[in-house]
């Protein structure tokens, strides 16, 4: 596959997302697939499950790639991402018990597991290469996809945060993959960036649509997939660090999983300034430092994501 043919699925993905978003928003609002934007004083109702647009864009890009008879690993990775998106869509539409989600997400990684059946080692800086044998594809790959998807899903909640942080992380991983010569991973990353960037136009403050679980699970799976494909698992872990910190802060608090019902949501004053509830979370750490509005908070968190992504890139370039 040459560069020209690799650009076609990227264009398909980007053009579809950009042009199909406005009618999709109208359709979601008509179908009452909506959510309340709780971080605005007027609490507007917005289209939910917008991640479906990225799901369709990735599917169209996969069909285009299949026409060019591309590398099977690329198609396996995209198939796994589509399956993760479908799990998210089911969750958005019918609501799923939290306990089933990790298993379904792990099952969604099967196409990727099959394409990585021969790999068995994991590299950790300064500790060296750890040999896992068959545990790597059978346990670590599904575990990685399920964990990453759940982490990004749980750290969501502000306009442009989930897809924004995902875009920053996927961008750095895509650039690193290309730099290291892992073209399959770079192509998958390119297709994802081509749908995430136009998606942000409708998701950044003030959001016209939310990604829903379809989008948030997809973002985490995207980071895990690209890092696994390019053997840059450590960089993927570093990119997911802000989400992991947020998750651990919430889990180590007094009432994990019940903080919102026990302590309430973030309060919004009339001028849009956010006041954090008393339980630990990464977003609340930023809010505690100074009074800020939603776009300021999202920009600060995107800065943190960029810092961690840069750290991951520096480690990969220096040590690997």
């Amino acid at each position: 596959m040459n560069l020209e043919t690799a650009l076609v699925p990227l264009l398909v993905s980007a053009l579809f997302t950009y042009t199909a978003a406005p009618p999709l928003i109208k359709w979601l609002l008509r179908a009452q697939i909506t959510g309340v934007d709780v971080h605005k004083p007027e609490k507007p109702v917005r289209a939910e499950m917008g991640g479906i647009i990225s799901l369709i864009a990735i599917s169209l890009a996969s069909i285009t790639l299949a026409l060019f008879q591309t590398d099977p690993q690329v198609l396996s990775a995209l198939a796994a991402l589509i399956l993760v998106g479908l799990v998210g869509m089911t969750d958005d539409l019918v609501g799923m018990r939290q306990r089933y989600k990790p298993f379904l997400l792990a099952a969604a990684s099967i196409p990727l597991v099959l394409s990585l059946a021969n790999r068995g080692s994991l590299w950790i800086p300064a500790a060296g290469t750890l040999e896992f044998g068959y545990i790597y594809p059978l346990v670590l790959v599904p575990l990685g996809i399920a964990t990453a998807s759940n982490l990004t899903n749980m750290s969501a909640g502000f306009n442009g945060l989930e897809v924004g942080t995902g875009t920053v992380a996927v961008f750095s991983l895509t650039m690193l993959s290309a730099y290291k010569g892992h073209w399959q991973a770079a192509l998958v990353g390119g297709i994802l960036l081509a749908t995430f960037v136009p998606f942000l136009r409708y998701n950044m403050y003030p959001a016209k649509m939310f990604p829903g679980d379809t989008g948030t699970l997809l973002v985490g799976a995207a980071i895990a997939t690209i890092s696994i494909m390019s053997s840059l698992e450590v960089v993927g872990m570093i990119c997911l660090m802000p989400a992991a910190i947020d998750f651990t802060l919430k889990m180590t608090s007094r009432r994990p999983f019940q903080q919102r019902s026990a302590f309430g949501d973030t309060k919004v004053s009339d001028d849009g300034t956010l006041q954090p509830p008393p339980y630990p979370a990464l977003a609340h750490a930023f809010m505690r430092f100074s009074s800020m509005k939603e776009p300021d908070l999202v920009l600060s968190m995107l800065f943190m994501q960029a810092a961690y992504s840069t750290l991951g890139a520096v480690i990969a370039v220096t040590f690997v």
Partner: protein
Amino acid sequence: MNRRLLAQGAKVTLLSLEIPLLSYALLYFTHALTRGLGPLSIFLALTSAAVGFAVGCRAFWKLILRSTS
């Protein structure tokens, strides 16, 4: 991005860096000390890294509370 936001983002990011550093240090030293134990060494190293991460997160939140109270 204005200067105030940049400074704020940098402050929280710097404070949060102790979490992966502590976690990685525990992973590295546990793996080095138990190298002879084979697969058990990996298990012990990953477990100590996870514990280090949780402890780091608690310390991070206490630092946030202390510097904002």
